[in-house]
């Protein structure tokens, strides 16, 4: 008897969310991101046509080719994915934007657009595949590389690193998380929550570059991550329809309700941390840095922060489907405009 193909509630199989075969290196952390993004969208029953992918330039930004062929995608310019997404998402506010960026893309030329997309709270899942190194140009230091990092053919890194999560918090992102490619289960839960968040969801994913920066002592390696990762909580995501069914033990689990009624459940793992205080989040990072820890999980969320779509006073129906005859103001109105000129 032939086995029935597994499908989600929409009747789509996982292959409906597949992209082109990956041309990234075998073992690249970004492949885990691709895999978990496909799983999250499949399991959340999001029609591929409702997703739009954006990316900048670099290994990270090639990743959108490897998931969801049935979604529109735009591979833009270095560090300038956020502006592209900002303009495009206005065309149809029912679409879900996924922005793929890297540390080279976001933490250097992209710093300005990164900061401003958060400030505007454009609904966008903003994934930074962070490996501390420029892969496509073969192994130069990125701005997130730790001080003292030694790479082949490069001078030892003399500068302090930029911390994407820290910058996101200071930049007032309404959703800030850190994942690790070596922890796919948590990554998937973070992606699910981000896909349901109504605002910019920044997920800094430590995603090792197996070719250029995976030495055991590198802060962006699998080995370092495995030893130093401290997950803040056991994270699970409950879609809107299922939230009433969920029961949780008092005091052990905190829940965060999102814009669409879905919930993020945070089961405590020995920390008494709730992600609703930006100041506490910054303190957490500062303490973790001192202890040489890689803190992962949902670090900050404010589901109520207004998005750019709430601020701009726009109709709910897609702007890119407004009929031509409604686009042009009337002939009479031009008469009035002319009459009011001197």
């Amino acid at each position, binding site marked *: 008897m032939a086995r029935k193909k597994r499908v989600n509630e929409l009747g789509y199989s996982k292959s409906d969310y597949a992209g*082109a075969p990956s041309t990234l290196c075998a073992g690249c952390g970004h492949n885990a991101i691709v895999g978990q993004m496909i799983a999250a969208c499949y399991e959340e029953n999001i*029609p*591929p*046509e*409702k997703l*739009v*992918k*954006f990316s900048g330039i670099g290994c990270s930004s090639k990743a*959108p*080719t490897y998931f969801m*062929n*049935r*979604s*529109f*995608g*735009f*591979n*833009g*310019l270095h560090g*300038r994915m*956020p*502006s*592209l*997404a*900002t*303009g*495009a*998402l*206005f*065309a*149809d506010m*029912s*679409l879900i934007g996924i922005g793929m960026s890297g540390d080279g893309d976001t933490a250097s030329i992209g710093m*300005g*657009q990164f*900061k*401003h997309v958060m400030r*505007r709270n454009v609904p966008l899942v903003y994934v930074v595949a962070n490996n501390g190194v420029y892969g496509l140009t073969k192994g130069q230091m990125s701005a997130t590389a730790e001080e003292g990092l030694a790479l082949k053919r490069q001078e030892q890194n003399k500068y302090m690193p930029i911390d994407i999560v820290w910058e996101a918090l200071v930049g007032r992102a309404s959703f800030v998380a850190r994942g690790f490619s070596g922890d796919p289960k948590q990554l998937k839960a973070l992606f699910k929550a981000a896909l349901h968040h109504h605002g910019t969801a920044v997920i800094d994913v430590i995603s090792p570059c197996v070719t250029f920066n995976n030495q055991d002592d590198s802060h962006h390696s699998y080995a370092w991550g495995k030893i130093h990762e401290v997950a803040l909580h056991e994270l699970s995501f409950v879609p809107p329809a299922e939230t009433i069914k969920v029961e949780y033990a008092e005091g052990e689990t905190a829940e965060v309700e999102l814009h669409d009624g879905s919930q993020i459940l945070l089961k405590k793992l020995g920390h008494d941390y709730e992600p609703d205080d930006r100041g506490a989040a910054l303190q957490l990072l500062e303490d973790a840095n001192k202890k040489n820890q890689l803190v992962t999980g949902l670090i900050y969320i404010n589901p109520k922060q207004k998005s750019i779509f709430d601020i*701009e*006073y*726009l*109709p709910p129906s*897609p*702007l*890119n*489907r*407004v009929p*031509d005859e*409604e*686009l*042009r*103001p009337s*002939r009479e*109105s*031009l008469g009035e*405009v*002319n009459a009011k*000129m*001197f």
Partner: protein
Amino acid sequence: MTKTKSASEPAVNDFSITVGTVNGSGSQTANMALVRAFFKMGIPVSGKNIFPSNIQGLPTWYSIRVSKDGYLARSETTEIVVAMNKDSFAEDLDKLVPGGIFLYADDIRQDITRDDVLLYPMPVKKLVREVEPPRELRDYLNNMVYVGVLAHLLGIEVEKLQQALDFHFDGKQKPIDLNMAVIGKAVQWAAENIDQASPYRVETMHGTEEYIMATGNTAGALGSIYGGLQFSAWYPITPATGLPEAVMKYRPILQKDPETGKYKLVVVQAEDELAAVGMAIGAGWAGLRSMTATSGPGLSLMAEYTSLAYYAEVPIVLWDVQRMGPSTGLPTRTSQGDINLAHYLGQGDTQHPILFPGSVTECFEFGWKALDLAEELQTPIFVLIDLDLGMNQWMTRPFQYPDTPIKRGKILWEDDLENLDWEWGRYLDKDGDGVPYRTVPGNTHPKSAYFTRGTGHDEYANYSEDPETWDANLKRLNRKFELARTMVPKPEIHLQEGAEIGIIAFGSTHPAVSEACDYLTADDVKVDYLRLRSLPITSEVKAFIREHDRIYVIEMNHSGQLHQIITLDMSDQSAKLISLTYNTGLQLTADWVKNAILAEEEK
């Protein structure tokens, strides 16, 4: 009052006034009151602000020309000077023609170095004090004194000044009354103290009845809105800022749904020009009518994204309100120096159509036409104007409602894809005209999506490094550019019987060139004139060049950029193409054009 000649017959409706003031002193109210009063009297008038890159304190000038012949270009001479600024006093006095009128604030105590002009010191402070204004408004009212004195000297109808101020202050009675009170005092003072007849006068005529007054920036914004503009991202830069500001001003009036109160047009002030163009391209890609506006420095920043939009075939309109470069240059002075930059903006073999509006009303027309062209050709379309056209108030024909429906180009939605009898590919040239069919996000057809990239791609938008695929794609883009040549606005050609030489000019120089043509004709130098309205040059332009012995390409930059572009396009005609460039930051004048051509013709 002082001396010298008074001409027997005054010059009527044919002179220029230059007002020298301190930047930020509120002289715009006074100057615009004069311009609008002349306009309401039916006298063709132009006003040009020559201002410094400064908020307050540096010298600034405003020149007004009234011309019964309808000449609106800057004049080389000034017959009346108003000196309100001690720092530019000596310089301003030097500008005046012999026999001209020199009005100045009597608290400026400087040597009068000329005895061949009419000198009128005005008791500015005294007259303003007489109307007992609030202390903080005193300085602003000073300028109304020269308005009143000029009204008396020239014969400006005070009622017309009242109408002008009514408009300026949007009917707010208090400031109107206060300003009119000062004007009244000044008129009275002039009547009692100036007994000489003015050598310059204005008289009511009927030269402005079919005109309005507006700036090119406002017209460009309105034209875009009437072109169905849906998205605009921008970043502040002089002299382009007025264009997006006008979009914001008219958005609630023209693009707000009366029932829901929701906007059909999005405006985002971006963090810089890199982001402004990125947003505009994102919107254009996703199926919105999209535009950004900037000036040269901003355009430089937009280069890389424009190259992507060209290669990925994204419709977008870019307005460049040119200012003087290179570099930061003269940010408040006019120029036509970005033609090469715009035409070839971006790395690789990029080339872009450019529209050149030659009047304020044409800014409106090209505003909507550019959006049509961008979507029909699926490519960036540039509209180039300059500070003079963009920021100054011009008398211009009323804006004409578009005479063709909105054109969205080749776009496929769900039903179109469902009913297609061929296999769609994003970059497949099905029609053989170089323009493929596109889909946009939100389309729910399972075959609608494609991946857009600035890297090599084949007809089905798949990544490709294949040499032949690359070459074929670039050749198709060139076919599209050749198609643009047949779609962009055609030139406006003015012919004369027996002319053997021709002029090619464009944009804000039109008034100066057209005036110069009259002068040349009067000097028996017959000249035809082609006002170029777009690049690439159309067949009409090529024919015009072939049909003349010599062609003068006139432009406001140093290197003759348009001359270079035309020469490249018509290398067999290059010997007859002569470049005449004027590059001072000031507007071109008819005298300069006439003299430049005569000098060449006499060679």
